[in-house]
């Protein structure tokens, strides 16, 4: 212990197993992540209807399309409820209801009045947060600890935040006279069903618009439960209309001539389709699309917290996150140590029942998504990357995928280029900061990036060069309603959250155009 100076600076990652641990103490201690007793969250609060209609003009109405579809629990494959697939006629009714509410009173309602409804919605969400969290996990498959600790608090926070803006828009944009755009068509994804509804509804309503919202076809239930909150908040009929359905419903919503602005969160392919549809129509559009974020680790970083950040970055919500840190760029000098820490950490991840409060990784949202993940992982193996998956037992029913790590990944591999939208991490290495920048930006996407270093000047130097809408330093996947979120390039355009997010729902000179202050 006393002559240290000539020791090699590198640690030997596999030595822990060989540590001088007394013989009798090895083996299971009868306690630990491998033998936590089941701790399921109760489902007694959640009451589901057998069949859901559409929320148009402030009430639930049957869909004129008369088309129904089941929504299933991805952890079991069981049908939870049947919901309506809104057709073109239903979308038309919803847009008309939104238009009527907009013109009759909502656009003229003082900001302080709009704020009152938003505050009510926020508080009602908080009051019913356990019910919403359980339903979110039932319908979408995400671990209940995430819906409980992330989705619900953030959804309520978005309503609170934008309630605060509603009567202060003039101060947010000095020299302008901001006014609403009109009827907004919003199409949201299945990975954060309620949270994305909150991200979309709160700024639109704060700015004085009315809304037609189309939830994702695999996760309509929390948006449908939200209609109860909207009704309980006394929000005037037609201000928010929710038309469930599939891709055709979404297409009808964005293409409807009565819609003044379209906001879409989802895949890049669909985003491009929407942009083509709306080209030349003078319609406002914001897109929040895919990503292939780089999580960049320098050798001086706090490596144990880096490990947590990498795990949170890619395995949060099973990697079904547009800003997931799916490419790990690690400085070569610490690559071996980081990968060793990462593998050991992956071994403690608990995959299974989304409703169990100890579950770290729940179910994959749909069979189609599971097929896509499996196919891309297969391509990674075939293209020669080195696969690591912990030997965790997956549930026999439902759609699950183990946390996956690929080493020896080349930037040309499909797993390094395509958005996988699953719990799959690709590890690449770099030697210099310039090389890290080059590799991080070598993607058609540009949504988010993470930088891990204890050196403040390097954080700033890197952040300036990242072609990404969001850059996190020594953390990842951190969201706040005050912080604008959005992308570059094929990750879309427009921001959500904060002052910048309001811009997407405002005409900065709207009141002048309409003949002065209302």
């Amino acid at each position, binding site marked *: 212990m006393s002559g240290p100076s000539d020791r090699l600076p590198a640690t030997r990652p596999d030595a822990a197993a060989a540590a001088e641990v007394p013989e009798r103490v090895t083996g299971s*201690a009868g306690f630990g992540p491998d033998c936590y*007793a089941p701790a399921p969250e109760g489902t007694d609060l959640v009451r589901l209807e057998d069949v859901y209609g559409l929320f148009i003009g402030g009430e639930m109405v049957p869909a004129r399309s008369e088309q129904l579809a089941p929504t299933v629990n991805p952890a079991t494959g069981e049908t939870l409820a049947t919901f309506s697939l809104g057709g073109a006629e239903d979308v038309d009714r919803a847009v008309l209801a939104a238009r009527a509410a907009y013109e009759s009173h909502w656009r003229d309602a003082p900001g302080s009045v709009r704020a009152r409804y938003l505050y009510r919605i926020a508080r009602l969400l908080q009051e019913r947060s356990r019910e919403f969290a359980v339903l979110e996990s039932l319908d979408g498959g995400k671990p209940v600890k995430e819906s409980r600790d992330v989705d619900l608090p953030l959804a309520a926070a978005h309503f609170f935040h934008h309630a605060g803006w509603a009567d202060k828009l003039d101060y947010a944009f000095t020299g302008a006279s901001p006014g609403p755009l009109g009827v907004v068509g919003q199409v949201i994804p299945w990975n954060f069903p309620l949270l994305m509804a909150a991200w979309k509804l709160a700024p639109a309503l704060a700015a004085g618009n009315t809304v037609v919202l189309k939830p994702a076809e695999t996760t309509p239930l929390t948006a449908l439960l939200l209609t109860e909150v909207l009704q309980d908040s006394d929000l005037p009929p037609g201000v928010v209309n929710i038309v469930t359905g599939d891709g055709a419903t979404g297409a009808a919503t964005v293409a409807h001539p009565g819609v003044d602005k379209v906001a879409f969160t989802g895949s890049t392919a669909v985003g491009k389709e929407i942009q083509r549809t709306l080209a030349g129509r003078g319609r406002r559009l914001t897109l929040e699309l895919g990503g292939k974020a780089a999580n960049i680790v320098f050798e001086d970083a706090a490596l144990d917290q880096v490990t*947590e950040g990498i795990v949170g970055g890619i395995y949060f919500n099973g990697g079904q996150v547009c800003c997931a840190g799916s490419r790990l760029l690690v400085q070569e000098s610490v690559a071996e140590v980081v990968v060793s820490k990462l593998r050991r950490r992956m071994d403690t991840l608990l995959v299974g029942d989304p409703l169990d409060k100890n579950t770290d990784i729940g179910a994959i949202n749909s069979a189609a998504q599971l097929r896509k993940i499996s196919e891309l992982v297969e391509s990674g193996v075939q293209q020669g990357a080195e696969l690591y998956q912990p030997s965790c037992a997956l549930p026999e029913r439902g759609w699950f995928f183990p946390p996956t790590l690929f080493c020896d990944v080349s930037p040309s591999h499909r797993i390094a280029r395509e958005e996988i939208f699953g719990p799959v991490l690709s590890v690449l290495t770099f030697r210099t900061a310039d090389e890290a920048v080059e590799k991080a930006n070598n993607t058609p996407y540009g949504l988010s990036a993470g930088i891990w270093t204890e050196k403040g000047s390097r954080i700033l130097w890197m952040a300036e060069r990242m072609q990404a809408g969001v850059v996190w330093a020594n953390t990842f996947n951190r969201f706040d309603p005050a912080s604008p979120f959005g992308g570059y390039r094929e990750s879309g355009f427009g921001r959500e959250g904060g002052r910048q997010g309001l811009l997407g729902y405002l005409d900065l000179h709207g009141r002048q155009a309409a003949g002065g202050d209302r």
Partner: protein
Amino acid sequence: MNTVATRAVPSAELAGHDEGVGLLPERLSGLPITPTDAVGLTERAGALAKRSIKTTAKGAALTLAVRCMDLTTLEGADTPGKVLSLCAKALRPEPADPDVPAVAAVCVYPELVPVAAAALAGTPVRVASVAGSFPAGLGPIGVRLDEIADAVQAGADEIDIVLNRSAFLAGRYRQAFDEVAASKAAAGHAHLKVILETGELGSYDAVRKASMLAMAAGADFIKTSTGKIGTSATLPVALCMAEAIRDYADAEGRAVGLKVAGGIRTAKQSWQYLVVMAETLGAPWLHPDLFRIGASSLLNDVLLQLDRLGNGGYPRPDKTVV
């Protein structure tokens, strides 16, 4: 007093450490010491604290907490009689239930080591003694080493000393290192636990450095706190030290134990620390050889919770033996 013979390093040699100033813990331990990010560390500790420990897992955790406990009394008012009843409780925490195991050790001041040693002779329960000018750890090094040797001579199996924070915080790392090494030698066959007194170190980076320094100097255990200052063990501090232990085991192949102490009073706290150990260091560390909880009042709450698991209802608090 038996003095010079037991010392590994003469006190005169330990007195001058000018050459040690600026010699960083990284050099002394021969290992890279990764920084600690306080935000990420507390977030991870918070997530571990939220693990839902129910039914069989709770039973296993509570039993393990008893087995890993250093039942402690460090009061000026301690009497031989009080130590004797503590020893009886250590051996058989729940007289009505022989399935409740004995605790790991009884921890007392050196003065009462002979009493505890006599009461626990021939049993699996060890005698632990604080020593080395506890709780400050700032007395003359010769005096501290003598106290360690005396306590071992009187029958202590384990010695809890306090890191010289004055030397450590002043950057006299060599001195702090040498004093731990000398204490280890003075303790001889007894296990040495080095208290970092993390509440006085000022940052998690310092906790990590002190952990590496103490382990490299020969500590068998590193321990959070004396329990004698305002800030004692916290979950993030325990996690920080567990991560240092993991790095040290990776590099050196030696498993060092962790003792958390001070302010741990409830059964729930005890299983939160066990979760930190289980998910950071793994099964080998879920054993009294490598994990201890130093506490005085914790045992009663653990026994109440164990009883409740067995009987399905909360028993009266006055049912437990003092």
